[in-house]
């Protein structure tokens, strides 16, 4: 206990650790530990260039990579009542919301967009796990309904990228009611004869899996994504045994008949285009990088 251990050593340590992982410039792959340069990682859609581990990607980054020339139009989502239950745990719910908004720069855990992929018009929805674990509350319900209405109105397929810890507990029963509510949204798309494709990304769990995620005409997932109703920890506590390696991962679900395909993020766009064009009676797409669609 002297000034060296109290003051100098932490200072030196912090200097070194900062040099090892400078903020924003380098990301360490949580799977293989490789240090990845931020630009390289972004160009690779947040997939590790060394081990192919799929890291989280924000809805906006995903849409930029997905839509032709990175151009898309946001679909407006009707605002729900904020904090319908006046919920308070250790923090007030509105404070948690504000913190999440500040950290992500987004309004809520779901983004809805219209645009073209390989000149194929679609409506796309992406869920943001970094925003309160992507949890499904009234806003997510509203977003799904708005997306379905936009798809029906413009006769476009609906593609949903899911990522969620489940229901938004802070909205209590109203979050649970988003299960039937989002199911109605899926039915609207289906009744209009339009394709509804889900892409399940890491992690997709709870009430989200048990509603719109599992109702796709086609269900795809990104490699190694955790997809489940009850999480592994809850199951281990219930059955008191260790779960096998790879349990509830995308490949495991594919083996058990719950998914159509497990697809690498970089190949998703091409696969979606191929599938959607066949389902909607359009000729094969022109492959390759396309510029933004011409504005009318």
């Amino acid at each position: 206990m002297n000034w060296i251990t109290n003051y100098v050593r932490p200072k030196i340590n912090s200097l070194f650790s900062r040099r090892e992982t400078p903020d924003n410039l380098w990301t360490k792959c949580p799977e293989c530990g490789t240090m990845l340069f931020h630009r390289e990682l972004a160009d690779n859609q947040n997939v590790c260039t060394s081990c192919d581990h799929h890291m989280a990607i924000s809805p906006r980054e995903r849409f930029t990579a997905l839509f032709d020339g990175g151009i898309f139009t946001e679909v407006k989502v009707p605002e729900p009542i904020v904090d319908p239950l006046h919920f308070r745990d250790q923090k007030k719910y509105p404070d948690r919301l504000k913190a999440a908004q500040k950290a992500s720069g987004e309004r809520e855990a779901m983004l809805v967009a219209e645009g073209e992929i390989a000149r194929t018009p679609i409506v796309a929805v992406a869920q943001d796990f970094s925003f309160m674990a992507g949890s499904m509350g009234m806003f997510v319900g509203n977003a799904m309904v708005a997306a379905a209405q936009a798809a029906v109105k413009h006769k476009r397929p609906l593609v949903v990228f899911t990522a969620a810890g489940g229901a938004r507990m802070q909205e209590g029963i109203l979050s649970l009611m988003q299960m039937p509510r989002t199911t109605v949204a899926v039915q609207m798309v289906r009744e209009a004869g339009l394709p509804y494709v889900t892409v399940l990304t890491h992690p997709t769990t709870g009430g989200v899996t048990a509603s719109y995620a599992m109702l796709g005409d086609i269900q795809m997932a990104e490699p190694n994504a955790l997809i489940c109703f009850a999480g592994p920890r809850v199951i281990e506590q219930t059955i008191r045994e260790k779960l096998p390696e790879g349990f509830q991962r995308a490949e495991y679900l594919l083996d058990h008949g719950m998914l159509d395909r497990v697809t690498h993020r970089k190949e998703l766009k091409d696969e979606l285009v191929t599938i959607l064009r066949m389902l909607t009676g359009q000729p094969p797409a022109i492959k390759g990088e396309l510029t933004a669609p011409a504005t009318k």
Partner: protein
Amino acid sequence: MNYLEFEKPLAEIEGKAEELRALARANPSMDVAKEAEGLDRKAETMLKDLYKALNPWQKCQVARHQDRPHCKDYIEGLFTEFTPLAGDRNFADDHAIMGGLARFNDQAVVVMGQEKGHDTKTRIERNFGMARPEGYRKAIRLMEMADRFRLPVVTLVDTPGAYPGKGAEERGQAEAIARATEKSLMLGVPVISVVIGEGGSGGAVALATANRIAMLEHSIYSVISPEGCASILWKDSDKMREAAEALRLTAQDLQKLGVIDRIVKEPLGGAQRGRKETIEAVGKAIEAMLKELSGKKPEALIKDRREKFLDMGVKGLAA
């Protein structure tokens, strides 16, 4: 009588009265009638006070009370010619969800619900009312049959939640729940639900996506158990009282939120102290709800159900 934790003072008084009466039976010369009656009156006043304003956590305990009538009791008490139907035609028959054809006031219906069991043996057999995918797939099959033959569907909801097990996950628990909810929304026949005990999360929704939803006065319906919520948000599962409060899971709050349509009153001291009256009251509610929907065309019933859920929560607690 099995007493709940908050009923302990009551248990003491009732125990004393019982002791006195036992003494008198042993010594016929003793006159304890007056004293025992006094204790009875005291117990009744206490019961009234206790149940006048149950807090949400106490309601959770009452909702889970082992002596409450369960699904099977309601089916036996309210329906005739009950013919249980089994199996999902795919993997197994799940005993956590029971259902089949039956008559309600002579009208043929499909009735189903989660059954928790009433002793160790039946609880294990029923898996404590926690269904696996087979249970939901059986429910879907019964719903389809009801739709085809134009029979109303009556569901009785009482589950801690869907079973979180290895096999259940492998066989698509989430998909089975999603499809059951979806099927409920597609039925061209009246669907009515009564939450009779615990409405536990997605496992409950799968059987409660109805045109009309009623709840027993002391039943609960929630996105997560208070214990689960406490361990996630408070990082302390002992904070279930606070979580129960915050979640607004009581029938009274759910009616204010516009999630349920009616509350069925329970006798003094909860359904466990008046099983017969409770079953009758639920019967009256089912009758009234079926009447509200009778004569409606299939399309109108589907539209009514969809709009009910689309509009839900739009008004918040002010509703």
